Protein backbone atom coordinates (compact mmCIF):
# COMPACT_ATOMS: atom_id res chain seq x y z
CA UNK A 1 0.00 0.00 0.00
CA UNK A 2 2.85 2.37 0.92
CA UNK A 3 4.66 1.72 -2.35
CA UNK A 4 1.47 2.30 -4.35
CA UNK A 5 0.94 5.67 -2.67
CA UNK A 6 4.58 6.61 -3.34
CA UNK A 7 4.22 5.71 -7.03
CA UNK A 8 0.99 7.69 -7.35
CA UNK A 9 2.55 10.64 -5.57
CA UNK A 10 5.55 10.68 -7.92
CA UNK A 11 3.27 10.36 -10.97
CA UNK A 12 1.05 13.14 -9.74
CA UNK A 13 3.87 15.56 -8.92
CA UNK A 14 5.74 14.88 -12.15
CA UNK A 15 2.58 15.51 -14.15
CA UNK A 16 2.32 19.06 -12.82
CA UNK A 17 3.09 21.68 -15.46
CA UNK A 18 4.49 24.14 -12.95
CA UNK A 19 7.13 21.63 -11.80
CA UNK A 20 8.53 21.46 -15.32
CA UNK A 21 8.29 25.23 -15.86
CA UNK A 22 10.26 25.85 -12.66
CA UNK A 23 12.83 23.18 -13.48
CA UNK A 24 13.24 24.63 -16.97
CA UNK A 25 13.89 28.04 -15.41
CA UNK A 26 16.48 26.55 -13.04
CA UNK A 27 18.14 24.68 -15.91
CA UNK A 28 18.28 27.86 -18.00
CA UNK A 29 20.03 29.69 -15.15
CA UNK A 30 22.54 26.84 -14.69
CA UNK A 31 23.24 26.70 -18.43
CA UNK A 32 23.66 30.48 -18.57
CA UNK A 33 26.07 30.36 -15.63
CA UNK A 34 28.19 27.67 -17.32
CA UNK A 35 28.15 29.03 -20.88
CA UNK A 36 28.39 32.75 -20.15
CA UNK A 37 29.58 33.54 -16.61
CA UNK A 38 32.31 30.91 -16.49
CA UNK A 39 33.62 31.77 -19.95
CA UNK A 40 33.90 35.43 -18.95
CA UNK A 41 36.37 34.60 -16.18
CA UNK A 42 40.06 35.29 -16.78
CA UNK A 43 40.82 31.62 -16.32
CA UNK A 44 37.73 29.54 -17.13
CA UNK A 45 37.25 26.51 -14.83
CA UNK A 46 37.19 22.87 -15.90
CA UNK A 47 33.75 21.29 -16.71
CA UNK A 48 33.20 19.66 -13.28
CA UNK A 49 34.14 22.89 -11.54
CA UNK A 50 31.92 24.91 -13.89
CA UNK A 51 29.01 22.65 -12.91
CA UNK A 52 29.71 22.87 -9.15
CA UNK A 53 30.14 26.66 -9.38
CA UNK A 54 26.85 27.04 -11.24
CA UNK A 55 25.12 25.10 -8.47
CA UNK A 56 26.86 27.13 -5.78
CA UNK A 57 25.71 30.35 -7.47
CA UNK A 58 22.07 29.39 -7.83
CA UNK A 59 20.93 26.58 -5.56
CA UNK A 60 21.29 28.27 -2.20
CA UNK A 61 18.57 30.81 -3.02
CA UNK A 62 16.63 29.15 -5.84
CA UNK A 63 16.34 25.53 -4.71
CA UNK A 64 13.98 26.13 -1.72
CA UNK A 65 11.65 28.13 -3.97
CA UNK A 66 11.68 25.57 -6.76
CA UNK A 67 11.13 22.43 -4.70
CA UNK A 68 8.73 24.27 -2.40
CA UNK A 69 6.45 25.49 -5.18
CA UNK A 70 6.74 22.43 -7.43
CA UNK A 71 6.24 19.62 -4.88
CA UNK A 72 6.32 21.07 -1.34
CA UNK A 73 2.60 21.79 -1.08
CA UNK A 74 1.43 18.26 -1.93
CA UNK A 75 0.54 17.18 1.60
CA UNK A 76 -1.12 20.52 2.37
CA UNK A 77 -3.32 20.04 -0.74
CA UNK A 78 -4.30 16.56 0.43
CA UNK A 79 -5.17 17.87 3.87
CA UNK A 80 -7.05 20.90 2.60
CA UNK A 81 -9.13 18.77 0.25
CA UNK A 82 -10.90 15.59 1.36
CA UNK A 83 -8.19 13.40 -0.22
CA UNK A 84 -6.38 12.70 3.06
CA UNK A 85 -9.70 11.55 4.58
CA UNK A 86 -10.44 9.32 1.59
CA UNK A 87 -6.92 7.84 1.70
CA UNK A 88 -7.04 7.18 5.44
CA UNK A 89 -10.41 5.43 5.16
CA UNK A 90 -8.81 2.94 2.79
CA UNK A 91 -7.06 1.29 5.70
CA UNK A 92 -3.62 2.88 5.62
CA UNK A 93 -2.09 3.94 8.92
CA UNK A 94 -1.52 7.68 9.37
CA UNK A 95 2.21 7.16 9.96
CA UNK A 96 2.56 5.18 6.74
CA UNK A 97 0.56 7.74 4.81
CA UNK A 98 2.76 10.69 5.79
CA UNK A 99 5.85 8.56 5.22
CA UNK A 100 4.64 7.68 1.71
CA UNK A 101 3.92 11.33 1.00
CA UNK A 102 7.40 12.35 2.18
CA UNK A 103 9.13 9.65 0.13
CA UNK A 104 7.03 10.51 -2.94
CA UNK A 105 7.81 14.20 -2.62
CA UNK A 106 11.53 13.51 -2.13
CA UNK A 107 11.73 11.18 -5.16
CA UNK A 108 9.86 13.68 -7.33
CA UNK A 109 12.07 16.58 -6.32
CA UNK A 110 15.25 14.48 -6.81
CA UNK A 111 14.07 13.40 -10.27
CA UNK A 112 13.33 17.00 -11.25
CA UNK A 113 16.70 18.21 -9.94
CA UNK A 114 18.45 15.29 -11.68
CA UNK A 115 17.03 16.36 -15.04
CA UNK A 116 18.21 19.91 -14.46
CA UNK A 117 21.67 18.89 -13.24
CA UNK A 118 22.14 16.36 -16.04
CA UNK A 119 21.49 19.07 -18.63
CA UNK A 120 23.91 21.33 -16.75
CA UNK A 121 26.64 18.65 -16.76
CA UNK A 122 26.13 17.93 -20.46
CA UNK A 123 26.34 21.68 -21.10
CA UNK A 124 29.59 21.88 -19.10
CA UNK A 125 31.06 18.97 -21.05
CA UNK A 126 30.05 20.40 -24.41
CA UNK A 127 31.03 24.02 -23.80
CA UNK A 128 34.08 24.99 -25.75
CA UNK A 129 36.38 27.37 -23.95
CA UNK A 130 36.24 25.75 -20.54
CA UNK A 131 39.61 24.57 -19.26
CA UNK A 132 40.58 21.03 -20.11
CA UNK A 133 42.72 20.78 -16.95
CA UNK A 134 41.63 20.13 -13.38
CA UNK A 135 43.26 22.82 -11.25
CA UNK A 136 43.53 23.49 -7.53
CA UNK A 137 41.94 26.95 -7.92
CA UNK A 138 38.99 25.61 -9.95
CA UNK A 139 36.70 26.00 -6.95
CA UNK A 140 37.17 29.08 -4.77
CA UNK A 141 35.49 28.24 -1.48
CA UNK A 142 36.67 24.76 -0.53
CA UNK A 143 38.50 23.53 2.54
CA UNK A 144 41.75 21.67 2.04
CA UNK A 145 40.27 18.19 2.59
CA UNK A 146 37.64 18.64 -0.07
CA UNK A 147 40.12 20.31 -2.41
CA UNK A 148 42.43 17.28 -2.26
CA UNK A 149 39.48 15.00 -2.89
CA UNK A 150 38.39 17.15 -5.84
CA UNK A 151 41.86 17.06 -7.39
CA UNK A 152 42.07 13.28 -7.00
CA UNK A 153 38.53 12.42 -8.16
CA UNK A 154 36.88 15.46 -9.80
CA UNK A 155 33.85 13.59 -11.19
CA UNK A 156 33.14 11.64 -8.02
CA UNK A 157 33.37 14.95 -6.13
CA UNK A 158 30.90 16.45 -8.62
CA UNK A 159 28.53 13.51 -8.23
CA UNK A 160 28.68 13.74 -4.42
CA UNK A 161 28.07 17.47 -4.65
CA UNK A 162 24.97 16.85 -6.76
CA UNK A 163 23.76 14.21 -4.28
CA UNK A 164 24.31 16.68 -1.44
CA UNK A 165 21.96 19.12 -3.17
CA UNK A 166 19.33 16.40 -3.40
CA UNK A 167 19.71 15.57 0.28
CA UNK A 168 19.43 19.28 1.13
CA UNK A 169 16.26 19.58 -0.97
CA UNK A 170 14.79 16.49 0.71
CA UNK A 171 15.52 17.92 4.18
CA UNK A 172 13.85 21.18 3.16
CA UNK A 173 10.83 19.32 1.74
CA UNK A 174 10.48 17.28 4.93
CA UNK A 175 10.28 20.56 6.84
CA UNK A 176 7.42 21.63 4.56
CA UNK A 177 5.78 18.25 5.19
CA UNK A 178 5.98 18.83 8.94
CA UNK A 179 4.57 22.33 8.51
CA UNK A 180 1.65 20.88 6.51
CA UNK A 181 0.66 18.79 9.54
CA UNK A 182 -0.52 22.03 11.15
CA UNK A 183 -0.99 24.37 8.20
CA UNK A 184 -3.25 22.92 5.51
CA UNK A 185 -2.73 25.89 3.20
CA UNK A 186 -0.70 25.03 0.08
CA UNK A 187 0.36 28.60 -0.67
CA UNK A 188 1.47 29.31 2.88
CA UNK A 189 3.40 26.03 3.06
CA UNK A 190 5.32 26.57 -0.18
CA UNK A 191 5.99 30.31 0.10
CA UNK A 192 6.33 31.28 3.77
CA UNK A 193 9.33 29.04 4.66
CA UNK A 194 11.16 30.31 1.58
CA UNK A 195 10.42 33.92 2.52
CA UNK A 196 11.69 33.27 6.07
CA UNK A 197 14.83 31.58 4.69
CA UNK A 198 15.66 34.42 2.31
CA UNK A 199 14.73 37.04 4.92
CA UNK A 200 17.06 35.41 7.44
CA UNK A 201 19.95 35.34 4.95
CA UNK A 202 19.49 38.99 4.04
CA UNK A 203 18.96 40.22 7.57
CA UNK A 204 21.93 38.42 9.11
CA UNK A 205 24.69 41.07 9.39
CA UNK A 206 27.50 38.76 8.30
CA UNK A 207 25.69 37.77 5.16
CA UNK A 208 24.17 41.11 4.25
CA UNK A 209 26.93 41.82 1.74
CA UNK A 210 27.50 38.35 0.45
CA UNK A 211 24.69 35.82 1.18
CA UNK A 212 26.80 33.01 -0.23
CA UNK A 213 28.96 33.14 2.88
CA UNK A 214 26.04 31.95 5.00
CA UNK A 215 25.37 28.99 2.78
CA UNK A 216 29.00 28.03 2.65
CA UNK A 217 29.68 28.28 6.37
CA UNK A 218 29.44 24.55 6.78
CA UNK A 219 31.38 23.86 3.61
CA UNK A 220 34.23 26.10 4.64
CA UNK A 221 34.54 24.90 8.21
CA UNK A 222 34.03 21.24 7.54
CA UNK A 223 34.22 18.81 4.68
CA UNK A 224 31.41 17.74 2.38
CA UNK A 225 30.94 14.80 4.74
CA UNK A 226 29.92 17.24 7.47
CA UNK A 227 27.37 18.78 5.12
CA UNK A 228 25.92 15.32 4.45
CA UNK A 229 25.80 14.68 8.18
CA UNK A 230 24.10 18.03 8.83
CA UNK A 231 21.35 17.53 6.24
CA UNK A 232 20.87 13.85 7.11
CA UNK A 233 20.41 14.74 10.81
CA UNK A 234 17.96 17.49 9.84
CA UNK A 235 16.04 15.05 7.63
CA UNK A 236 15.81 12.26 10.21
CA UNK A 237 14.86 14.62 13.03
CA UNK A 238 12.14 16.49 11.14
CA UNK A 239 10.77 13.33 9.50
CA UNK A 240 10.51 11.62 12.90
CA UNK A 241 8.66 14.58 14.40
CA UNK A 242 6.30 14.70 11.40
CA UNK A 243 5.49 10.98 11.62
CA UNK A 244 4.94 11.04 15.39
CA UNK A 245 2.88 14.25 15.42
CA UNK A 246 0.68 13.31 12.43
CA UNK A 247 0.24 9.78 13.79
CA UNK A 248 -1.32 11.19 16.95
CA UNK A 249 -3.58 13.71 15.24
CA UNK A 250 -7.26 13.23 14.49
CA UNK A 251 -9.15 14.27 11.34
CA UNK A 252 -11.60 16.50 13.17
Amino acid at each position, binding site marked *: *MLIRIVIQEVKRLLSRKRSWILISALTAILVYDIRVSDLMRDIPPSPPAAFVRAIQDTFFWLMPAIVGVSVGDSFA*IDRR*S*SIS*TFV*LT*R*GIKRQKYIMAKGIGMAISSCLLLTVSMLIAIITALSTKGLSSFIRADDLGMLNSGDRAFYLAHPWIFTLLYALLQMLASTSYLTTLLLLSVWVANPIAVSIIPFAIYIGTIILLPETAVNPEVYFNLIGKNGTMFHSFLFFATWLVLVATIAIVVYGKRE*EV
Partner: protein
Amino acid sequence: MEHVVELRNVCKEYRHSRKESVEVLHNINLTLNRGEVFGLIGPNGAGKTTLIRIMCGLVRPTKGSVKVLGIELTEMNAQLPTEIGVVVENPSFIPDLTGRENLRLLASIRGIIGDSEIDATLRLVGLDPDNKIPAGKYSLGMRQRLGLAQAIMEKPKLLLLDEPTNGLDPKGIIELRDLIRQIAEQGTAVFLASHLLYEVEQVCDRIAIIKNGKILKDVRKGDPVPYHGFHIQVSSANDLLIVEQWANKHGASFAKGSGVFEGKVETTIPVPAVVRKLVEDGVNIESIIPDKDTLESTFLQAIREEL
Protein backbone atom coordinates in the same frame (compact mmCIF):
# COMPACT_ATOMS: atom_id res chain seq x y z
CA MET B 1 -25.05 -12.52 13.47
CA GLU B 2 -22.08 -10.18 13.70
CA HIS B 3 -22.91 -6.52 13.33
CA VAL B 4 -21.15 -4.44 10.70
CA VAL B 5 -20.93 -1.60 13.22
CA GLU B 6 -21.20 -1.94 16.96
CA LEU B 7 -20.84 1.11 19.20
CA ARG B 8 -21.01 0.67 22.96
CA ASN B 9 -21.15 3.66 25.34
CA VAL B 10 -19.13 5.82 22.99
CA CYS B 11 -18.20 9.26 24.31
CA LYS B 12 -16.10 11.91 22.66
CA GLU B 13 -14.70 14.92 24.41
CA TYR B 14 -12.72 17.73 22.83
CA ARG B 15 -10.36 19.58 25.08
CA HIS B 16 -10.16 23.31 24.35
CA SER B 17 -7.74 24.08 27.15
CA ARG B 18 -6.43 22.31 30.24
CA LYS B 19 -9.56 23.20 32.22
CA GLU B 20 -12.16 23.45 29.48
CA SER B 21 -13.54 20.58 27.45
CA VAL B 22 -16.74 19.92 25.56
CA GLU B 23 -18.49 16.57 25.22
CA VAL B 24 -19.72 16.16 21.63
CA LEU B 25 -20.91 12.55 21.97
CA HIS B 26 -22.43 11.01 25.07
CA ASN B 27 -22.94 7.27 25.65
CA ILE B 28 -23.79 6.37 22.08
CA ASN B 29 -25.01 2.79 21.63
CA LEU B 30 -25.70 1.71 18.11
CA THR B 31 -25.56 -1.31 15.86
CA LEU B 32 -25.77 -1.58 12.11
CA ASN B 33 -26.36 -4.79 10.19
CA ARG B 34 -25.65 -6.00 6.66
CA GLY B 35 -27.96 -4.51 4.05
CA GLU B 36 -29.47 -2.06 6.51
CA VAL B 37 -29.87 1.66 5.82
CA PHE B 38 -29.55 3.61 9.05
CA GLY B 39 -30.38 7.29 9.18
CA LEU B 40 -29.11 9.72 11.76
CA ILE B 41 -30.88 13.04 11.90
CA GLY B 42 -30.15 16.00 14.06
CA PRO B 43 -29.53 19.70 13.93
CA ASN B 44 -26.14 21.11 12.92
CA GLY B 45 -23.51 20.47 15.56
CA ALA B 46 -25.41 17.52 17.04
CA GLY B 47 -22.43 15.17 16.65
CA LYS B 48 -23.29 13.39 13.38
CA THR B 49 -19.99 14.07 11.62
CA THR B 50 -17.94 13.16 14.71
CA LEU B 51 -19.79 9.85 14.95
CA ILE B 52 -19.04 9.06 11.29
CA ARG B 53 -15.38 9.95 11.78
CA ILE B 54 -15.19 7.68 14.81
CA MET B 55 -16.66 4.83 12.77
CA CYS B 56 -13.99 5.12 10.10
CA GLY B 57 -11.12 5.53 12.57
CA LEU B 58 -10.35 9.17 11.81
CA VAL B 59 -11.29 10.26 15.32
CA ARG B 60 -10.73 8.21 18.47
CA PRO B 61 -13.46 7.95 21.11
CA THR B 62 -12.65 9.24 24.59
CA LYS B 63 -14.58 6.33 26.12
CA GLY B 64 -16.45 3.27 24.92
CA SER B 65 -15.94 0.57 22.37
CA VAL B 66 -16.12 0.89 18.58
CA LYS B 67 -16.19 -2.27 16.49
CA VAL B 68 -16.36 -1.86 12.72
CA LEU B 69 -16.30 -4.83 10.32
CA GLY B 70 -14.98 -6.99 13.13
CA ILE B 71 -12.09 -4.65 14.00
CA GLU B 72 -11.93 -2.94 17.37
CA LEU B 73 -10.90 0.69 16.78
CA THR B 74 -8.97 1.37 19.94
CA GLU B 75 -6.67 4.24 20.89
CA MET B 76 -3.58 3.15 18.95
CA ASN B 77 -5.04 0.46 16.77
CA ALA B 78 -2.62 -1.09 14.33
CA GLN B 79 -5.21 -1.91 11.71
CA LEU B 80 -8.05 0.15 10.30
CA PRO B 81 -10.92 -1.44 8.39
CA THR B 82 -10.41 -1.24 4.64
CA GLU B 83 -13.85 -2.01 3.27
CA ILE B 84 -15.40 1.34 4.15
CA GLY B 85 -16.66 3.98 1.75
CA VAL B 86 -17.04 7.47 3.12
CA VAL B 87 -18.65 10.59 1.72
CA VAL B 88 -17.65 13.55 3.86
CA GLU B 89 -19.64 16.76 4.03
CA ASN B 90 -18.75 19.01 1.06
CA PRO B 91 -16.09 16.74 -0.43
CA SER B 92 -13.21 18.27 -2.37
CA PHE B 93 -10.46 16.73 -4.49
CA ILE B 94 -7.01 17.45 -5.86
CA PRO B 95 -7.88 20.55 -7.86
CA ASP B 96 -5.55 20.10 -10.84
CA LEU B 97 -6.53 16.47 -11.53
CA THR B 98 -9.69 15.45 -13.38
CA GLY B 99 -12.41 13.51 -11.59
CA ARG B 100 -11.24 10.28 -13.18
CA GLU B 101 -7.60 10.94 -12.25
CA ASN B 102 -8.62 11.61 -8.65
CA LEU B 103 -10.47 8.28 -8.53
CA ARG B 104 -7.55 6.44 -10.14
CA LEU B 105 -5.25 7.85 -7.49
CA LEU B 106 -7.54 6.65 -4.70
CA ALA B 107 -8.21 3.29 -6.36
CA SER B 108 -4.46 2.64 -6.66
CA ILE B 109 -4.14 2.52 -2.85
CA ARG B 110 -5.96 -0.77 -2.49
CA GLY B 111 -5.39 -1.84 -6.08
CA ILE B 112 -8.51 -4.00 -6.33
CA ILE B 113 -10.29 -2.21 -9.18
CA GLY B 114 -9.19 -0.99 -12.58
CA ASP B 115 -10.11 1.74 -15.05
CA SER B 116 -13.24 -0.03 -16.30
CA GLU B 117 -14.77 -0.15 -12.80
CA ILE B 118 -13.83 3.49 -12.22
CA ASP B 119 -15.50 4.56 -15.48
CA ALA B 120 -18.58 2.49 -14.71
CA THR B 121 -18.88 4.08 -11.26
CA LEU B 122 -18.50 7.57 -12.73
CA ARG B 123 -21.33 6.84 -15.18
CA LEU B 124 -23.44 5.37 -12.37
CA VAL B 125 -23.27 8.64 -10.39
CA GLY B 126 -23.95 10.70 -13.50
CA LEU B 127 -20.44 11.93 -14.35
CA ASP B 128 -18.66 11.63 -17.67
CA PRO B 129 -15.39 9.63 -17.39
CA ASP B 130 -13.97 11.51 -20.38
CA ASN B 131 -14.58 14.94 -18.86
CA LYS B 132 -11.22 16.74 -18.89
CA ILE B 133 -12.28 19.57 -16.56
CA PRO B 134 -10.08 19.57 -13.43
CA ALA B 135 -11.90 18.71 -10.19
CA GLY B 136 -11.07 22.17 -8.84
CA LYS B 137 -13.60 23.61 -11.29
CA TYR B 138 -16.42 21.20 -10.40
CA SER B 139 -19.69 22.53 -9.00
CA LEU B 140 -20.76 21.42 -5.51
CA GLY B 141 -23.18 18.93 -7.05
CA MET B 142 -20.46 17.41 -9.25
CA ARG B 143 -18.07 17.19 -6.30
CA GLN B 144 -20.78 15.47 -4.31
CA ARG B 145 -21.27 12.94 -7.13
CA LEU B 146 -17.52 12.39 -7.36
CA GLY B 147 -17.39 11.96 -3.59
CA LEU B 148 -20.06 9.30 -3.84
CA ALA B 149 -18.20 7.62 -6.71
CA GLN B 150 -14.99 7.30 -4.69
CA ALA B 151 -16.97 5.88 -1.79
CA ILE B 152 -18.80 3.17 -3.75
CA MET B 153 -16.29 2.28 -6.49
CA GLU B 154 -14.61 -0.48 -4.47
CA LYS B 155 -17.95 -1.97 -3.36
CA PRO B 156 -17.49 -1.39 0.39
CA LYS B 157 -19.22 -3.41 3.08
CA LEU B 158 -19.98 -0.23 5.00
CA LEU B 159 -20.97 3.06 3.40
CA LEU B 160 -20.89 6.18 5.57
CA LEU B 161 -22.64 9.20 4.08
CA ASP B 162 -22.44 12.63 5.70
CA GLU B 163 -25.02 15.02 4.24
CA PRO B 164 -24.78 13.35 0.81
CA THR B 165 -27.57 15.43 -0.79
CA ASN B 166 -25.76 18.76 -0.23
CA GLY B 167 -25.64 20.60 -3.54
CA LEU B 168 -27.56 17.93 -5.48
CA ASP B 169 -30.46 18.98 -7.70
CA PRO B 170 -33.85 17.23 -7.25
CA LYS B 171 -33.02 14.69 -9.98
CA GLY B 172 -29.70 13.96 -8.31
CA ILE B 173 -31.42 13.49 -4.94
CA ILE B 174 -33.88 10.97 -6.41
CA GLU B 175 -31.03 9.12 -8.17
CA LEU B 176 -29.03 9.04 -4.94
CA ARG B 177 -32.00 7.61 -3.06
CA ASP B 178 -32.39 4.80 -5.62
CA LEU B 179 -28.65 4.16 -5.58
CA ILE B 180 -28.57 3.84 -1.79
CA ARG B 181 -31.38 1.29 -1.89
CA GLN B 182 -29.62 -0.60 -4.67
CA ILE B 183 -26.34 -0.67 -2.72
CA ALA B 184 -28.10 -1.84 0.44
CA GLU B 185 -29.83 -4.63 -1.48
CA GLN B 186 -26.38 -5.95 -2.40
CA GLY B 187 -25.61 -6.36 1.32
CA THR B 188 -23.80 -3.11 2.10
CA ALA B 189 -24.67 -1.47 5.41
CA VAL B 190 -25.39 2.22 4.85
CA PHE B 191 -25.14 4.90 7.53
CA LEU B 192 -26.66 8.19 6.43
CA ALA B 193 -26.31 11.38 8.47
CA SER B 194 -28.46 14.29 7.43
CA HIS B 195 -30.52 17.16 8.69
CA LEU B 196 -33.13 16.64 5.96
CA LEU B 197 -35.97 14.69 7.58
CA TYR B 198 -37.73 13.86 4.34
CA GLU B 199 -34.63 12.37 2.70
CA VAL B 200 -33.86 10.18 5.69
CA GLU B 201 -37.46 9.03 6.01
CA GLN B 202 -37.60 8.06 2.33
CA VAL B 203 -34.58 5.79 2.27
CA CYS B 204 -33.81 4.46 5.76
CA ASP B 205 -34.89 1.29 7.53
CA ARG B 206 -34.03 2.71 10.92
CA ILE B 207 -33.73 6.29 12.05
CA ALA B 208 -32.13 7.76 15.14
CA ILE B 209 -32.51 11.32 16.34
CA ILE B 210 -29.39 12.92 17.79
CA LYS B 211 -29.02 16.18 19.64
CA ASN B 212 -26.16 17.56 21.72
CA GLY B 213 -24.29 14.29 21.28
CA LYS B 214 -27.10 12.10 22.65
CA ILE B 215 -29.32 9.72 20.72
CA LEU B 216 -32.81 10.75 21.77
CA LYS B 217 -34.89 8.25 19.82
CA ASP B 218 -34.39 5.18 17.63
CA VAL B 219 -37.27 4.50 15.23
CA ARG B 220 -37.60 1.45 13.00
CA LYS B 221 -39.55 1.50 9.76
CA GLY B 222 -42.70 -0.60 10.28
CA ASP B 223 -42.88 0.17 14.00
CA PRO B 224 -46.50 0.97 14.96
CA VAL B 225 -47.10 4.69 14.52
CA PRO B 226 -49.14 6.46 17.22
CA TYR B 227 -52.56 7.52 15.85
CA HIS B 228 -54.33 10.52 17.33
CA GLY B 229 -57.47 10.98 15.16
CA PHE B 230 -58.13 12.66 11.83
CA HIS B 231 -58.73 15.92 9.96
CA ILE B 232 -61.90 15.89 7.90
CA GLN B 233 -63.40 18.12 5.23
CA VAL B 234 -67.05 17.66 4.21
CA SER B 235 -69.39 19.26 1.64
CA SER B 236 -71.81 21.18 3.85
CA ALA B 237 -72.46 22.61 7.30
CA ASN B 238 -75.01 19.86 7.90
CA ASP B 239 -72.40 17.19 7.15
CA LEU B 240 -70.03 18.81 9.63
CA LEU B 241 -72.80 18.79 12.23
CA ILE B 242 -73.27 15.02 11.71
CA VAL B 243 -69.50 14.52 12.18
CA GLU B 244 -69.65 16.52 15.41
CA GLN B 245 -72.61 14.42 16.63
CA TRP B 246 -70.77 11.22 15.76
CA ALA B 247 -67.72 12.43 17.73
CA ASN B 248 -69.82 13.31 20.78
CA LYS B 249 -71.55 9.93 20.63
CA HIS B 250 -68.23 8.04 20.54
CA GLY B 251 -66.48 10.05 23.24
CA ALA B 252 -64.14 11.78 20.78
CA SER B 253 -63.29 15.46 20.92
CA PHE B 254 -64.31 17.63 17.99
CA ALA B 255 -62.92 21.02 16.96
CA LYS B 256 -63.88 23.11 13.96
CA GLY B 257 -61.01 23.75 11.58
CA SER B 258 -60.00 27.06 10.05
CA GLY B 259 -61.09 26.05 6.52
CA VAL B 260 -64.61 25.71 5.06
CA PHE B 261 -66.56 22.74 6.55
CA GLU B 262 -63.39 21.41 8.18
CA GLY B 263 -62.94 19.75 11.52
CA LYS B 264 -60.43 17.88 13.65
CA VAL B 265 -61.45 14.80 15.62
CA GLU B 266 -59.33 13.24 18.36
CA THR B 267 -60.14 9.56 18.62
CA THR B 268 -58.61 6.12 18.65
CA ILE B 269 -61.24 4.66 16.28
CA PRO B 270 -59.46 3.84 12.99
CA VAL B 271 -60.23 5.96 9.92
CA PRO B 272 -61.81 3.16 7.77
CA ALA B 273 -64.43 2.44 10.47
CA VAL B 274 -65.17 6.16 10.79
CA VAL B 275 -65.54 6.58 7.02
CA ARG B 276 -67.91 3.61 6.80
CA LYS B 277 -70.17 4.99 9.52
CA LEU B 278 -70.21 8.56 8.24
CA VAL B 279 -71.00 7.48 4.69
CA GLU B 280 -73.85 5.36 6.03
CA ASP B 281 -75.15 8.46 7.79
CA GLY B 282 -75.12 10.29 4.43
CA VAL B 283 -72.08 12.50 5.03
CA ASN B 284 -70.35 13.69 1.86
CA ILE B 285 -66.65 13.42 2.69
CA GLU B 286 -64.35 15.63 0.62
CA SER B 287 -61.17 14.50 2.37
CA ILE B 288 -60.04 12.74 5.51
CA ILE B 289 -56.43 12.70 6.73
CA PRO B 290 -55.32 10.51 9.64
CA ASP B 291 -53.42 12.40 12.35
CA LYS B 292 -50.39 10.13 12.84
CA ASP B 293 -46.92 10.78 14.20
CA THR B 294 -44.52 11.64 11.38
CA LEU B 295 -40.77 11.70 11.54
CA GLU B 296 -41.05 15.46 11.70
CA SER B 297 -43.40 15.43 14.68
CA THR B 298 -41.30 12.73 16.40
CA PHE B 299 -38.18 14.79 15.77
CA LEU B 300 -39.74 17.99 17.10
CA GLN B 301 -41.14 16.18 20.12
CA ALA B 302 -37.79 14.58 20.92
CA ILE B 303 -36.01 17.91 20.58
CA ARG B 304 -38.62 19.63 22.80
CA GLU B 305 -38.34 16.90 25.45
CA GLU B 306 -34.55 17.34 25.44
CA LEU B 307 -34.98 21.07 26.07
